[in-house]
């Protein structure tokens, strides 16, 4: 009609076509593309080994497991955004599985989940996984891998769209076990029943709550730095120590709906106040008390978190392999300790490749994983320097390479700082931390791939 009135090809007709077509074009361009949602699923599986295995964490030939105080679990959270999927596997163990079994696990799930972040709570009441005198329980490891891979698939199957929220609490349940003396020496400060102030300590309890879109909690992640060593060498039962009690308290407080994962932080120099308590002096009660206290704080934080669904979700994951030298001089060490040649050889290799994991959810929540026992200063630094508000620190992640003291702590010395339990070169922790920081900046596109004057 318009063409007939205005004349086909006339200027007025062209203008009319433009006026009609332009908003239509804009409308088509802006038509809502279904927003990419964040999905998550959880699963748990009992991986408690059979009795009779060597328990690791304290000396004593023959500290064999005679039973189960509380089962050792693998807890799995699978998260997906777009094409990226990550499985966070949280183990009630002293360390992650040996490298060969981690590879098996990766191979078993890689088609569905190409990114794994496997971490351990570091209980000292579990089977031996850190290379040492006790042979690792390889049959059990193979069984555990099979169970964990099935659980990962189960978590994938049960994945739903989710919304997230983060909150923080404070718990004074740990102390720094390396007490610096005025004479420049360090005293081993194992237990702290009287609550003497020590430093540095990070009392932060960081909680990530993951809800389905109806607001039902699916998972609660609790990040806190403290060695699970309330049970001492006299305990011969498998146990997750205080984190086991903590997870129960959190799950119960939230109506037994979510799966609670305890993410061990940078606990390299942090002991619980009631560390290494003999059973006869109430270790069971104190472990339960510590876990309950932490659980109540975490639950209170979780209950107050208002989760939100981001309109633009994202999931970024990078694992860097950083090369480090051994810290020690092999020749001098062999001369000083001629009876430990095999251990010295293992800890004085020319190069070690350490996996450093960085993950960023929705450009807002950052995770750093280090493959060993970082000192707590790194966790404090991570939180202070990380460019997003919510930053989680995971020790014992994707490998185990002993302790990572800060450069300053390495100077002071003491257990974990200058003992055979640390063998990666001084400064490795700082470099790993900074690599993760750079990765987060890159993920946020704040460190750009091209110089600004050449864009």
């Amino acid at each position, binding site marked *: 009609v318009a063409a007939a009135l205005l004349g086909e090809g006339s200027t007025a007709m062209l203008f009319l076509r433009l006026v009609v077509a332009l908003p239509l074009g804009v409308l088509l361009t802006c038509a809502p593309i279904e927003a990419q949602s964040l999905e998550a699923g959880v699963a748990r599986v009992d991986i408690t080994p059979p009795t009779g295995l060597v328990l690791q964490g304290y000396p004593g030939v023959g500290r064999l497991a005679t039973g189960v105080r509380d089962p050792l679990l693998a807890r799995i959270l699978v998260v997906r955004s777009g094409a990226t999927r990550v499985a966070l596997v949280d183990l009630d163990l002293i360390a992650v599985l040996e490298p060969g079994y981690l590879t098996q696990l990766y191979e078993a799930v890689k088609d569905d989940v190409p990114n794994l972040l496997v971490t351990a709570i570091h209980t000292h009441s579990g089977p031996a996984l850190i290379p040492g005198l006790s042979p690792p329980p390889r049959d059990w490891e193979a069984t555990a891998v099979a169970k964990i891979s099935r659980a990962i698939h189960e978590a994938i199957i049960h994945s739903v769209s989710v919304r997230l929220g983060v909150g923080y609490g404070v718990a004074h349940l740990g102390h720094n076990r390396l007490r610096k003396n005025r004479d420049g020496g360090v005293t081993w400060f194992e237990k702290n029943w009287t609550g003497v102030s020590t430093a540095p300590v990070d009392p932060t309890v960081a909680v990530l709550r993951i809800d389905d879109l109806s607001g039902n909690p699916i998972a609660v992640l609790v990040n806190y730095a403290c060695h699970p060593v309330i049970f001492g060498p006299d305990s011969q039962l498998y146990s997750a120590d205080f984190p086991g009690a903590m997870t129960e308290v959190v799950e119960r407080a939230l109506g037994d709906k979510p799966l609670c994962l305890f993410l061990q932080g940078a606990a390299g120099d942090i002991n619980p106040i009631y560390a290494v308590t003999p059973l006869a002096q109430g270790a069971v009660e104190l472990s339960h008390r510590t876990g309950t206290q932490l659980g109540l704080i975490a639950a209170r934080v979780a209950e107050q978190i208002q989760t939100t669904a981001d309109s633009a979700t994202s999931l970024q994951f990078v694992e860097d392999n950083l090369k480090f030298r051994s810290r020690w001089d092999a020749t001098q060490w062999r001369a000083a300790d001629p009876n430990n040649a095999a251990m010295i050889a293992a800890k004085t290799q020319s190069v070690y490749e350490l996996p450093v994991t960085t993950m960023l959810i929705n450009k807002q929540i950052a995770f750093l994983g280090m493959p060993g026992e970082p000192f707590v200063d790194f966790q404090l630094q991570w939180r202070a320097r990380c460019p997003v508000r919510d930053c989680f620190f995971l020790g014992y992640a994707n490998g185990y390479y002993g302790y990572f003291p800060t*450069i300053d702590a390495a100077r002071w010395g003491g257990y974990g700082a200058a003992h055979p339990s640390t063998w990666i070169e001084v400064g490795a922790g700082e470099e790993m931390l*900074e690599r993760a920081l*750079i990765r987060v900046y890159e993920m946020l596109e704040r460190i750009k791939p*091209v110089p600004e004057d050449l864009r």
Partner: protein
Amino acid sequence: MSTQEYSWKKMTARWSWLFLLIIRVLTWVVAVPVFGATLEGGVAQVDITPPPGLPMYGYLDRLRKHQVAISTLDPLYARVLVLQGGLKRAALVTLDLGRTFNQSWLDRLHNTAKQTSQIDELIVTASHTHSGPNVLDVYPDNRSPAWETAALDKVVEAIHRAALHLEPVRLGSASGGANICYNRRHIDLDNSVTMLWSNANKIPTTPVDPTVTVIRIDRQDGTPLAILVNYACHPIVFGADNRQYSADYVSTMIATVTNALPAKPICLFVQGADGDINPYYATTPLNQGAVEKRDWTGRELGTEVVRIARAIETRASAALLDFADDEVVFPLRWHPKEFHDDLLHVHGPLVFQDHAEPIDAFPSPNKLALHVTMLLISRQIGIVGMPGGPFVEFQINLRARCPVEVCLMMGYTNGFFDYFPTILAASQGGYGAGDSNTYVAVGAGERMLDHALIRMYETLGELRAVPELENQPQRKR
């Protein structure tokens, strides 16, 4: 030619070898290290001002316009401090230049100084003046300019002179503050960066390190032999319109110090981590009083140095010198080939005479080996050198972690690889932090500082080579 003349010449020729041998032996005897129980020091300085007509360092515009130096406002010096501690001898060479000479020049200097003056360790550092001749790693015709070779000979001779005059010395140090500079990166509320190229109104900025550190080296009679001044501030009061050689405010500072102290000590300026620090009167045009502003800046700093130096009480120091010069390898921050080609495309071929010169190679390097230097004097003074312009936070960080009485950060030392921003600064961007003036991997500055500190702690025996085997808690077997 008479028979008598002929005989004399013949005799001279016959015995000349003996004469030369005697001279050589005498020289050797005088210069050979005498290993005493006290620290010894010797100083020298030499004018290395090149002839006019050379391209100048520091401003790409000046290079593009082919504006060369026309004369000398104040001469450019190399100043040398040779220290002997026990069996070790080290030479610190400060240059009134934009950067150090290339690696070949440094190697030749080190080798020659080793032969002629028994120098074990060499630290060469530049003040980073932007009113000196341009110095390149590789010259277009692959031949170093004659003045660089002449400068090499002069510095060799100055080191030799300083070594010849070694004498027992006493050390002292103290710090003060000078308010002559600011941080040229203004961080906006949205975390972006606005470059503040000058700041005549002295608007407060952060981070800045106003610390002036002074090391006083006295003869045994208490008269000052040398004054080392460490401060972080770009010597760029003169801008691109200046075509006269000058050490910028450093020359005024040094004149102020040497004229005020007895026995006219040699004053060595050690540039700090000035990667993001400008003088308030940066790049003042000549017709707006650049010379006066240069003098104000230098006098302010010099007056503070004099105040500090006068208050220092030197003391006999242990004859100990410890040194590390390690090559640390870093990847490139940018894609090597794309970076090289984009630089050429956007800025033209002269860009490599201004910055990013190590990238101008075929194939473009994807890794760079940087010298990180650590010097400990008498286990009392720690010096860390980085081969470029570190941002000032590294200097503040070094001081906070220093394990000895005093620590100095030296930029532009034993090589030149432009800027080293902190990780945070790299994420914010701006000149020297997110542009082509920085190309070594992000985090390199943090790594170099940690590396140098670890070397210092190792030297001090604070980091062991063997783990503690006694009294370890009986855990994890």
